[in-house]
Structures are given as structure tokens and as C-alpha cells.
């Protein structure tokens, strides 16, 4: 039978495999959900998945292949920024819509009007972090521990941008690389800085050891993380040290939204693994694509693009719409670790603060 195809490039092998797997699982769950409720346009939805090892070198031919050989209607990137940015140009020039699930490089959507992103650009979330620290928590002295890649850098750029507005002094910033797990020197220095809040960017595998080591050294300052922390594994790694860590993210575990709670429940059932933000992003991206195709009423790529641009969808990561650049507009969820679980802490919905870039 004929199907509607969505193409996915995702790192399934190599260093980025764990994120790739989560994102792909999220996407698979979305397909499962859609198909079990009748598919779209009366056809089944099908994913065409290729492993890109998070490498731009591979995502380029993959994009070409998805467009030309597999004739997908929409492309979804479940990969990192480099691979996504390189592929975005291909999709744009072929006139095929492309949705980045969680890659945060600002230039991705600048490839053109066929490229969208369902996750926050780093700056937006960074600004939310600043509001959280200064406005909600009323902290004054911040230390930044920055993951030295596009993710960490853009988050921190946003944080810095708004810090002053909320009365925060940035005492110091310490960069570290994504491969670091030992933060002894940084921790020693942070201790001497005596901050009252620490804005730490990173992924769960760097954040877990980092938080443990900060607490071991007797540092009591509040730790603010972001969506990179957002997985149960983070809590497992850091154990008791993770209690009280606050993060900005897209996924509200205590959400009253049916879409979100269904996602969390069904994900765990289907994959026997706790869900995380990356999985929710993959899920959301596919849902957005599917809804747009349904809405367009056919698989004409140009029509689908227009329909994506006009999206207004309740997804697992909140209510989604796009601005003229293709950047997502949605609220930022604030979660806190309590008794070994992420719990609702606050929602930031300040439209002006969260406005994504428009050019």
C-alpha cells in the first residue's frame, strides 16, 4: 500500500548514538500513535531512517538520497547541529520542508523558508535561564559553567544578554569540553568564587558528574541547568546531589496536557526506558510534520511547507507555532528535581523574552 514518507537523518552509531536513539524512539512513537489512529490522508505514515553519525559529511548525501530516491514529503533531523546545518541547505534548494528536532545552531533556519525548528534556539532558553535565576529565584552572583560547543555557547549567550536586566552579576565563566567528566579544577575555583547560583550548561553525562562534584566540594549554591539535563539518567548519575537542581526545558512531567502525559506513559511502555527531552523533540517534530501534511491535504512539498508555517499544534513539548524564520514559539517549562524525579516548578511564558530571532 502507498505510504506517506518522512525522512530522518539520525546518529545511530558513534559518539552521538544515545541522543540519536532517543530521538528516533520518540519519532517512532509518534508514527505508532498516528498510524493506530488511522494514519494521514488515509495512508500509513512511514519513516525512512538513515544513520548520519552526526557528521555533516554524511548528512549531505543522505539528504539528497531521501529527497531524490526515497521521495520523502518532509525531512526531519534527529541529529546534531553540524549534520543538520549541512543538510538544511540541500532541503532548501530542493524545495523540501525540513524540521530540526533538537539541533540548536542559529544558522539552521537561516538556510531558507523550507527549514523549521521545533526546539528552542539556545539563546531563547538562555534568556529564560536568566529570568529564572534573577527574577524567579532572586539570585545575584552567578557563575557560568559552559559546555564548549554550539549548544552551551548559545545558551550562555542568551543568559548573558539578559543577566543584567535581572540584576545578576556574572562572577566568572568556565568552559569545559563535551568529553570532560572530571571537573575538579573548575569546582575548586567555583568554590572560591562563592556564587549563589550556578548556571551550568551541558548534557546529562557531563552534568551528572559535574553536579556530584560541586556538591561534594560543599558548594551549596542553586544549580540551574537546561534541557540537556532533562533525562532520568542525570538523576541516576548524580544521585542525592541532584536534589534541588532546577532546569529549563520543553517537557513538563506534571503536565495536565494529555498529549504530554500520553507521550510519557506510552514511551516508557514501548521502549522500557524513561523518556527524555530529546525523545520528546523527535516526537514533536514528526507530529508537526504529520499534522502539516494532513492539513495540506496532499503531499505536495510546497503546500506542506506552507502548512507547517501555519502550524498551531499541541505537542508533547507544548503548544507549537512558528515565526517567519521557522523558529518555534512556545513556553519554557521549569522543572526541579525532587525525591529523584523531575517535578513542575514554574512556566515562563513571557512572549517578548522568548521571542526567537526573525532573520
Amino acid at each position, binding site marked *: 500500500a502507498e505510504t506517506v514518507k518522512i525522512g530522518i537523518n539520525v546518529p*545511530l*552509531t*558513534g559518539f552521538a548514538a544515545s541522543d540519536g536513539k532517543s530521538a528516533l524512539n520518540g519519532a517512532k512513537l509518534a508514527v505508532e500513535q498516528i498510524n493506530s489512529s488511522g494514519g494521514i490522508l488515509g495512508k500509513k505514515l512511514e519513516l525512512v*531512517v*538513515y*544513520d548520519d*553519525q552526526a*557528521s*555533516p*559529511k*554524511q548528512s*549531505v*548525501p*543522505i539528504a*539528497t*538520497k531521501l*529527497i*531524490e*530516491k526515497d521521495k520523502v514529503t518532509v525531512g526531519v533531523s534527529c541529529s546534531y*547541529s*553540524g549534520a543538520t*546545518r*549541512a543538510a538544511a*541547505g540541500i532541503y532548501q534548494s530542493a524545495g523540501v520542508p525540513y524540521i530540526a528536532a533538537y539541533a540548536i*545552531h*542559529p*544558522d539552521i533556519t*537561516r*538556510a531558507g523558508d523550507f527549514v523549521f525548528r521545533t526546539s528552542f534556539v539556545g539563546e531563547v532558553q538562555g534568556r529564560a535561564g536568566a529570568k529564572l535565576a534573577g527574577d524567579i529565584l532572586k539570585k545575584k552572583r552567578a557563575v557560568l559553567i559552559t559546555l*564548549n*560547543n*554550539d549548544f*552551551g*555557547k*548559545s545558551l550562555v549567550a542568551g543568559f548573558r544578554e539578559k543577566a543584567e536586566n535581572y540584576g545578576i552579576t556574572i562572577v566568572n565563566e568556565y568552559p569545559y569540553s563535551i568529553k570532560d567528566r572530571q571537573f575538579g579544577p573548575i569546582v575548586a575555583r567555583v568554590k572560591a568564587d562563592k556564587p549563589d547560583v550556578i548556571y551550568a550548561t551541558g548534557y546529562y553525562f557531563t552534568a551528572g558528574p559535574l553536579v556530584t562534584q560541586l556538591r561534594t566540594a560543599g558548594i551549596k549554591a542553586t544549580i540551574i541547568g537546561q534541557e540537556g539535563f532533562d533525562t532520568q539518567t542525570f538523576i541516576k548519575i548524580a544521585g542525592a546531589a541532584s536534589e534541588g537542581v532546577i532546569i529549563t526545558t520543553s517537557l513538563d512531567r506534571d503536565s495536565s496536557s494529555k498529549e504530554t502525559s500520553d507521550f510519557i506513559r506510552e514511551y516508557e511502555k514501548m521502549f522500557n526506558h524513561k523518556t527524555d527531552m530529546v525523545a520528546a523533540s523527535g516526537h514533536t517534530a514528526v507530529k508537526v510534520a504529520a499534522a502539516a501534511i494532513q492539513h495540506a491535504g496532499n503531499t505536495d512539498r510546497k503546500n506542506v511547507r506552507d502548512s507547517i508555517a501555519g502550524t498551531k499544534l499541541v505537542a508533547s513539548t507544548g503548544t507549537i507555532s512558528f515565526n517567519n524564520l521557522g523558529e518555534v514559539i512556545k513556553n519554557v517549562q521549569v522543572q526541579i528535581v525532587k525525591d529523584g524525579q523531575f517535578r513542575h516548578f514554574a512556566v515562563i511564558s513571557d512572549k517578548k523574552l522568548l521571542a526567537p530571532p526573525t532573520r
Partner: protein
Amino acid sequence: MEYEISLLTIMGIAIIGALSLNLIVGFCGQISLGHGAFIGTGAYTSALLTGAGISFWIALPAGMFLAGILGIIVGFASLRVRDDFLAITTMGVVFLFLGIVRKQDFLGGEMGIAMIPDPGLGKLGYMIFVLSLALALALFSLYLKRSWMGFAFDAIADDEDTAGLVGINSARYKLIAFGLGTCFAGLSGVLYAHNVRFIDPESFGFVESITVLSMVVIGGTGSVWGVTVAAAILSIFPMWFQFIDDYKLLVYGGLLCTIMLFSPDGLSGIAGRIFSKAGRRKTDASG
């Protein structure tokens, strides 16, 4: 067709990269684990220049030139340290390169450089351009191998001290090898940058250097056509092996390992054996 074009372009770029390393490793016997740095130098130079509005046709030689200069500087290191020490030093060069690029805002830092201008040849035109450069480099390599320079390289690769004792200025030859090799590495970097049109530090790291080296070794160090074939195959290996997706890297790693085990002299060794066997059979038959 576009898909095939993009694969062939990638292939051509990889062949240029591998042949350039072959000049250093295969011809002159100087092991280098840092080729990514020179490819990266070419890519960054051209990306910056064309980004600033300068023509691709100027950026291309500029990228080669700068990579070659950097290569000669590293070549000076090879005059001082040898063998495994050199291997690790060149590996250090790649990490240093990355470390510096990462922290330099004008190089895009961690974010890399996006929207690198199109050279304006069209996809097909670009592919033809890349493939003809690859062919030219292969021919040049073949020529070089048979020239007196190649002969002197052989001697240096074999035994540097003795080469000195028969009057060969191995320091100069080594610098030339590094200069030439890295200059062509720069070429492959330039071509890469304008093909993918996005570059970031990670694309030119240690893993990339090792990938190029494994093309050379699997092809058979020093064998021009062997290296060419190996680069062609390995560069699109991930695409070919999409169907075994989850096991792709496992197969790749296993393949590197088994080829080394069963044919340490690489493809050219395998081919050599097949031909000599075939040749023998023929003479058997006739005799």
C-alpha cells in the same frame, strides 16, 4: 542523478585527501596522524575568504598555500622527532589546531561557519571539477613516484640516516614532502568546504585524520591506485552500508582490523597476490 553526483563529489574529495597524505606517509615514510589539521586549514581559509566576498578561484590557491605553509612548519618538527614520536606529535598538532579554532570567534568558534558561498559551477560542474583534480593528483603522484624525487623519497622512507650518508639532503626532501602533501590536503579541504557548505572544528579532528590515514594504509601505503580505490570505497562506505545501520561502524572497525590482519600491505597487496597467482596459473597452463 543528484545523489550519485553528491557521492562522486565526496569520493573525489576523499581521494584528493588520501593521495595528499600518501605523499607524506607512502612516499616519504613520515607517519602523520594530523592530516585533519591541514584539510581544516584549507577549508577554513577558503570559507573565510569567500565569505568576505573574495572569488573562489583566489580562495582555492590561498587555502592550498596556507595549508602548505602550516605543513612545512610541522615538517620542521619531523626533522627533530621521529617514528612514533612524530606520529604522536602530528596527532598533537590536530588537537592544537582544534583547540585554537574552537576558541577563535573570527573562525566561528564552536559554531563553525555556515552559508559558505557556492562556487557557481552547479552540482554537476563541481563534481567534474573535483574529479578532474583528483585525477590530476593521481597522475602527478604516479609521475612523482618515478621521478628522481620519488627515488630519493624511497631512500628516506627506507633509512634516513643512510640516505644522509649517500649524500641525500633528507631534511629538505622531507620538508618538500610535507609541503606538497599538506598543500593538496588544503585543496581537499577547500573542496570539502564548498561542497558541504558548512564547516565546524569537529569535521577536521583526530577521527578525520585517522580516517584519511586508514584510506592510505588500506589502499597500501605508497600505492597510488590502491590508495585511490581505498579512498573511493571508504569515503562512501557509510552510504553503502546503510542497510546494516546499527552495525555499520562495527563492520567498519572490524574491516580495518581484518584487512590489516590478512593483508597488511592493503589492497595493493591483495591485488598483487591475485595477479601473481593468475600469472602463475597462466604460465602453468602454457608450460
